[in-house]
Every structure is written in C-alpha cells, then in structure tokens.
C-alpha cells in the first residue's frame, strides 16, 4: 500500500506541475532567452566574419620608414605600404588627412616602440594600424629567419602533453577535475531550480486546509518523500529543457556562436572521485530538501517561509567566497570548518573532492554527516508536517511540536 501511495503521490504531484501553463512559461523562458541571445550572437558573428573576410582582401594604404632594416619591402608593398619620402612632414600630412597612415620602425625594436600615426577610423578600427605594423614586422622577421619550425619555437607556437603521477598512478590535471565538478554544477542547478518548490511543497496542504484529509489517508513520510521525488523529476525536465538549446547550439552551430571547442575526449572519469561526488550530491540534496520542507511545514504562508529560506540559501553560496583557499590551502581552519559544517559541507567538499584535496577519511566523514543530518532533517520535516501543519494560519511552535505529548 505504501508503495502504491508513493507512486500515486509522485504521479499526482509531477503531472499537476508539468500540466500548468505557468510552469512551462517559466521553464521555456530561459531557453527562449538563450535562443534569442544565440540568434543575436549568430547574426553578429556572421556579419563580423563577412566583414573580416572583406577586410582580408583589402590593403591598408600606409607609408613607412625603417631604421631597423628588418622590414621586407616586398611584404610591405603587398600589404599596401610604401617607403616614406618625407618623414619630416609625415605626421603633419596624417593630421591634415593627406596621408592615411605612417609607421616609423626604430633602429632598435628592443629599446624603442614602433611609432604608428593614422587617420581616425573609429575606436574599434583604429587598432588596425597597430595590427598591420606588427604583422609587417613579424612576417618580415620570419622571412629573415627562413624556418617555420624555428619561428614557431621562438613564438611558442607549439603544444605540450604532460603526465604526472601520484601513488604510482597517473594523476590528471584539469581533465580529472572537471568530471567531479559536474556534481557541483548539478547540485546548484537542482537546488536553485527546486528550492522554492521544496519550500512550498507542504505549504500548499496547509494553505488549502487539506492536511487533515491527507494525514488520515496516507503516511506523511510517503507524502513528503513522494513530493521530493516528483520535484526531482520536475527538476530533471527543467534541466533537459534548459540544456537542449545549449547542446543543439554547441553541436550544430559552435563556430557561428563563437563557443569554445571543448575536447571532451580528454576528460578522465576516475571512479573514486566520481563516487564521492555522487554521494556528496545525494547527501547534500537530502539535507537541503529536508530543511526546506521543514521550513515549509513550520511557516503558515509562502511569504513567511521565504524570510527563513534566505539564510539557508546564503549558507549554500558562502563557500564560493573562499574558493581560492579551498583550492590552494585546503588545510586552513576556515576551509576545515566549511568542510564539516553541514550547510557548507556539500559545496566545500565537492570542490575539494574535484581538486583532489579531500582525503578518504574526510570524504567518509562528510558523506556520513550529510546523510545522517539529511535523514534527520527529513524526519523532523515529516514530524513538523504531521503535528504542525494543522496550525493552519499560525506559525508552528517548535516547542509544542517537539513536546513528547500534546
């Protein structure tokens, strides 16, 4: 019967949420906004591309003087340049608009800057002069070196592949950090998307005066757990809807949208950090859910509940203020406190787990702590709901709720 009721609650709560027009308006608003932003990026990216294609075929008319002797006249001519015949008046002619641009290459590039004078073309296009002057010098130098390999070496245009070892095993770099961090992202998404609904989940029974009928029909634990599961499913639907335009954009329009090219094949999914990340995620989810449902059971209205809700959410974000310490100095006192304090533990421990600074013992303690406190919070939430939610229009007295007898 309990399983039947749980299924019934999950089905009812899930279907009635996703049937609401308001839900879809809120859920689709983000992808629609993303779509609009992507569309704008796509449009401006296309026009930038065609403009730069057009600019590629254009030459910039300029004159130059070369005291260094490094500039290759052929290259300069190809780029639209010509040697300056009268350097003394060149700046004046640029000022008067009689000359487009003049580059003065000094005898020593190390000691002096290349002086660039040009007619104003607007704040963004003025950079072209510097770029052309620099490009002319780079290409001329490459020409003099005469070796592409040497040039690449000098410029640092080459890649490295490194491997480090820890305890006889390959210890990855960022490739190993990213996968466990996905749990952190997932945790944030789930809590941010669902927190308000968790808070309001039992408020509805109170506000609608339906608590007594519910309490005499099914076990409150079944109701609360059913609501949490349905919220999770609702969150999954929302996450899918949010993620789909990004995935579609990344897969089919990555270049047009100027998205970075992630090489996901380099990611390393290590078993233990992933397991710890998953357990921290589940434990943290249970803890926050229990607390939020409990707040909802105590408070008479959503408005009252939101006042208490804010500090809980702030505690969730606090670890990000010390994220640099979490990464660089995980042994510091503040990081240790945040690692073990239940409300800051999920985020801090997930960060440390990803960066490899959470020892096995610490991980076990934090996971156990989150599960214990989480289950305790859920039990308290159920208790508060059972004995507190018929205080329909009043804030529940915790003393009364926890008194052994009424």
């Amino acid at each position, binding site marked *: 019967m309990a399983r039947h009721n749980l299924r019934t609650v999950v089905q009812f709560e899930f279907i009635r949420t996703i049937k609401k027009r308001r839900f879809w308006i809120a859920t689709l608003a983000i992808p629609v906004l993303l779509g609009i932003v992507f569309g704008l990026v796509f449009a401006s990216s296309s026009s930038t591309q065609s403009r730069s294609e057009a600019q590629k075929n254009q030459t910039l008319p300029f004159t130059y003087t070369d005291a260094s002797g490094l500039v290759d006249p052929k290259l300069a001519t190809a780029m639209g340049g010509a040697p300056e015949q009268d350097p003394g008046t060149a700046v004046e002619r640029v000022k008067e608009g009689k000359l487009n641009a003049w580059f003065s290459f000094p005898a020593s590039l190390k000691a002096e800057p290349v002086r660039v004078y040009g007619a104003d073309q607007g704040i963004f296009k003025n950079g072209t002069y510097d770029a052309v002057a620099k490009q002319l010098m780079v290409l001329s130098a490459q020409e003099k070196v005469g070796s592409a390999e040497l040039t690449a070496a000098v410029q640092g245009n080459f890649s490295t592949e490194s491997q480090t070892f820890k305890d006889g095993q390959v210890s990855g770099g960022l490739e190993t950090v990213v996968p466990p961090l996905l749990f952190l992202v997932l945790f944030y998404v789930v809590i941010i998307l669902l927190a308000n609904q968790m808070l309001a989940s039992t408020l509805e029974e109170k506000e609608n005066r339906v*608590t007594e009928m519910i309490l005499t029909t099914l076990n409150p634990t079944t109701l609360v757990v059913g609501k949490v599961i349905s919220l999770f499913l609702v969150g999954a639907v929302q996450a899918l809807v949010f993620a789909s335009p990004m995935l579609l954009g990344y897969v089919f329009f990555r270049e047009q949208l100027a998205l970075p090219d992630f090489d996901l094949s380099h990611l390393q999914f290590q078993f233990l950090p992933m397991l710890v990340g998953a357990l921290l995620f589940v434990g943290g989810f249970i803890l926050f859910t229990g607390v939020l449902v409990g707040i909802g059971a105590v408070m008479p209205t959503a408005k009252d509940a939101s006042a208490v809700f804010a500090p809980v959410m702030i505690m969730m974000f606090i670890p990000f203020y010390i994220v640099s310490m979490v990464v660089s100095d995980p042994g510091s006192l503040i990081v240790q406190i945040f690692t073990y304090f239940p409300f800051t533990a999920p985020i801090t421990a997930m960060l440390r787990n990803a960066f490899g600074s959470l020892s096995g013992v610490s991980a076990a303690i934090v996971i156990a702590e989150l599960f214990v406190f989480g289950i305790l919070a859920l039990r308290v939430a159920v208790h508060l709901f059972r004995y507190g939610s018929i205080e329909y229009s009043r804030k529940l007295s915790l003393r009364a709720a926890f008194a052994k007898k009424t």
Partner: protein
Amino acid sequence: MRFGAKQVVDGLSFDVVRGETFGFLGSNGSGKTTTIRALLGIYRPTSGTLEINGKVFSDDFGARLGYLPEERGLYKKESVRDVMGYFGRLKGMSKAAANDFCRQFLDRVDLADKAELRVDKLSGGEQQKIQLGVTIMNEPELLILDEPTKGFDPVNRRLLMDIIEERKQAGATVMMVTHQMEEVERLCDRIILLKDGRAEAYGTIDEVQNQFGGRTIRLKYSGMIPQSPKYQVTLQETNYAELALEDSVDESDVLRDLVLAGVVVRGFVAAKRSLDDIFMQVYGEAPGAEHGSSGPVHSRPGRGRAA
C-alpha cells in the same frame, strides 16, 4: 488531553459500536474536534488511548476511513476529477473505479458538468459536496464527519443526510459532530454531550432525555400562562410555549390548571424533553449559536473507542 496549561479533554471515555451512528454534541471549545483529531493520530493524547477496532490509529486505516474534517479544504488549483481521482487512488481504488465513482457522485449532486473545473471555481457549497464525495470514496467502514452540514442550504443538507443514511444502511459506522438536533434525532443511535472537556451525558437519545428529566409539554395557546410549582416555562414565543414538568406531576393536572387560569389551549402535546432543551440546559445557549469546536468530554477517564 492538554494544550499547554489548558486541560481540553478530561477523563473522557466512550465506545462507538460497529454499525451505529454516534453523535458528538457540544458547544465551542468543548473538545469534540480535539477528541476526533486525537482518535485519528493528528494529536497525541496526554494520557489514555483512543482505538479503532482495538488498535491505535495508523496509516493502514486510511483506506477504510472517511474523514470530513471541520477545516474544509481541497487542492484548489486542480480539477474536480483530478482531486477525486487522487484521493480515490490513495484510498486504494483503481483509476477506473475512482473515475466511475466520481462520475456517479457528481451526477447525483448535480455537478456532472463541473468535473473538469478547478475546485476554486466552484462555490463554497459545491466544494463541500466534492469534499463529501472524497470522504465517502471506496465505501469506508468508518465515517467521521465534523459538522457535515455546515454551510449547506436546506436542500443540500437533506441530500447529505440521505447520503449518510445510505452509508449507515450499508453497514458503515458513523461518528458525527453536529449542532443540528434534527440531524441527531434523525440519524444518531447514541450521543455524547461534551462540556469543558467532560461528558455531560452519554447514551441513546432516550437515555439522555431520561437523564435530563424526561417530560415536556408543547403548548399552543392564547392568554397568560400562570406560574406554578408543577412546571417551568422553558420556551415562550407568541402563542407557543414549552413547559418542563416536575417529576411527580401529571400532564392532565397541568392542562386543568391552565384551563382554570383562563388560558385558551389550542394544542397540548406531552413529550420527552427535546435535545434542544437539553442543549440549552447544559450550555445555556441554543445548539446552533456556536460554530467550530475543540473541547472536552467526560465519562470514564481516558478511553475512546470506535467501531
């Protein structure tokens, strides 16, 4: 049963027998709703036990119980059909059975065309009917109704009474809190009267009437009713009065005295004291004067049993 320093129900003991209709009577704050909530595990009794079929209430009773609480409420943003379907499923009905029941019930209470409407689009009385429908889904063995007719007009009150009567005929045990003595007299086999957390009376209607001193004369008349040690005037309206007789007085003596005193008697009915009178005597007010509840009862300390 105690809330803080206040003793709300004190030394109450009663039994409700399987298949009977049991009336919970009492004024505001007399402990009726508190007792029912304690019986259903919503409150925890300070001492004593409340049992259904010899067991303290647990979730297993849910499917066999129909409870219409004093605080009315349903999921207001959902359709009537969805709400009834949900509760039907929770009470162990199949989806099809819940739908069938929903259709038949809505037909019966003239709400068939409102099945797809959201509950908050219905009037208060219509919502009450839906809640009653939810209460009697899956043919509960035990019906607990806290002021079931509150907010109903006379037509719908009659309909509701018929439905309760049907459940009774089908063998269900019914416990009802009510201020309507007409309902009590029509439906209840036994009653309990609560005052300040104690039972003032407990038994069949006859027993309770006997307990409060038996006989009343309902008099239609004109003239002046004289004062007399043989009776007390308990109700006096234009051309109508009710007289509570002293124990040893014969009704015919009273009639003769009235006629001799010049009262023109147009109607003279000797009857047991009405529950209204008894209510007035116990609480000092008319039964319908107060609404709501939460209070006490008494009889034998610390036990309550249903069905």
